[in-house]
């Protein structure tokens, strides 16, 4: 009879035997899930069974969190992992690191099926895409509070557009629990009435990004009130959330770039506006100045003082003209008087007498004697000369040579 094993030693031996079998280290087993439990530790415990047998399974928290698929009792699944022994319980079990629903196909088939379905619904229609505001006031970020994506986004915003009102709506971005929380975070983001929402996650495996292929998440992105920029994974990663977003950015940093104007551009805009402001005022003032000058000139023309001055000038003018005219008339009159005076002087009979002529009248009358026939011999005649008068008597008639006076 051999020496008895201790239970511990036996279990350790069996464990070593099982765990060194290479076929048990990397295997896929198909079965139906039962007795699934998720204690607070985050680990996942369940049993896989078929018609006649059962296999205990455990999935550690780390792997469980990365699961895209959320296993439930009754699901037919394929689980990948290794066989190990839980020595304390004396049980061998499958340490699973990946589970996917059997028959539902692989992730890619899920992806394409859901994509086709949502596409048919028009969820990805380019006509549904809204423009991203050029100058957002408030930005909501839906991402993990601890991820590199948030750090990258904030770094870009701090550089480009630090006046932005940035609000983080935190949510886990991977694991089975992530999708409903992402949906909630998008709803919460919209309640803040942001101008734009960034939904982001840093790079990772396709499984890591799987939450962004969740139908609920995709629909929430499409239905968001505020336009959504998606920045999920790296450039080559496309998720259905990217298709539903109003704008797809290749990375979280790029999403931040697309969401924000550049401070340098805006400062240049501002300079332009300031110049226009000054120019506009200058031209307003210049116009007023012109208008003022114009009105002042017009006013000067209309002023009563101007009219008065005008009248005064006319008066002066008329006065001057009147005086001139008067003087002219006076001159003419004076000339005329002078002329008449000369003529009058020339006609004065006394003047002729001074030149030695005499006027002969019948004595005692004013009858001027012009012909010898007027007088008879012996008749008295008055002779008037320049300086006096005397009386003569007529001699008998005596004819003068050349005289035409006497005719008989």
């Amino acid at each position, binding site marked *: 009879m051999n020496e008895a094993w201790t239970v511990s030693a036996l279990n350790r031996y069996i464990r070593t035997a099982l765990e060194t079998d290479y076929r048990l280290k990397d295997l896929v087993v198909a079965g139906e899930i039962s007795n699934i439990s998720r204690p607070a530790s985050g680990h996942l415990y369940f049993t896989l069974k078929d018609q006649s047998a059962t296999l205990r399974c455990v999935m550690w928290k780390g792997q469980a969190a990365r699961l895209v698929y959320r296993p439930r009792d009754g699901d037919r699944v394929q689980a990948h992992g290794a066989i190990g022994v839980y020595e304390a319980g004396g049980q061998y079990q499958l340490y699973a690191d990946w589970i996917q629903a059997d028959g539902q196909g692989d992730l890619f088939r899920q992806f394409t099926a859901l994509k086709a379905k949502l596409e048919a619904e028009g969820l990805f229609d380019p006509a549904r895409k809204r423009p991203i505001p050029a100058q957002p006031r408030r930005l909501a970020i839906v991402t993990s509070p601890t991820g590199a994506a948030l750090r990258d986004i904030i770094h870009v915003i701090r550089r480009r557009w630090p006046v932005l009102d940035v609000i983080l*709506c935190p949510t886990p971005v991977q694991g089975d629990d992530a999708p409903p929380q992402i949906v909630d975070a998008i709803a919460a983001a919209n309640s803040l009435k942001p101008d734009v929402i960034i939904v982001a996650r840093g790079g990772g495996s396709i499984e890591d990004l799987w939450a962004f292929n969740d139908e609920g998440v995709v629909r929430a992105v499409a239905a968001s009130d505020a336009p959504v920029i998606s920045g999920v994974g790296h450039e080559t990663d496309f998720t259905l959330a990217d298709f539903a977003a109003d704008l797809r950015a290749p990375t979280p940093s790029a999403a931040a770039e697309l969401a924000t104007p550049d401070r340098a551009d805006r400062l240049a805009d501002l300079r332009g506006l300031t110049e226009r402001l000054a120019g506009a005022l200058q031209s307003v003032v210049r116009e007023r100045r012109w208008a003022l000058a114009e009105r002042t000139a017009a006013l000067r023309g209309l002023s009563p003082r101007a009219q008065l001055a005008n009248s005064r000038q006319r008066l002066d003018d008329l006065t001057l003209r009147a005086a001139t005219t008067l003087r002219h008339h006076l001159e003419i009159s004076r000339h005329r008087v002078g002329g008449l005076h000369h003529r009058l002087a020339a006609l004065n009979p006394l003047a002729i007498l001074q030149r030695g002529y005499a006027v002969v009248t019948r004595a005692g009358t004013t009858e001027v004697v012009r012909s010898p026939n007027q007088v008879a011999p012996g008749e008295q005649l008055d002779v008037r000369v320049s300086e006096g008068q005397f009386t003569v008597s007529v001699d008998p008639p005596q004819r003068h040579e050349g005289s035409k006076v006497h005719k008989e």
Partner: protein
Amino acid sequence: MPKKPPAPPTELSFEKAFAELESIVARLESGELSLDESLALFERGQALAAQCNGLLEAADLKVKQLSPGGELEELENFDSEES
């Protein structure tokens, strides 16, 4: 001119100040205002431009976080200049 007294430019966000500045420039350029109005608008425009400039030059990004209770909390010391 709006009936209510306009907010002091120093209390306006960049976007509000910038938008108002744009509209002021447009109104001034229309040339349909009285001289008094033009001068008042010009002065306000200058203050708005100063506000915009100041905000952009001196701004330090503040990030808030939406708490589960729906409150906005300041996110302290986030990404504080890793240069």
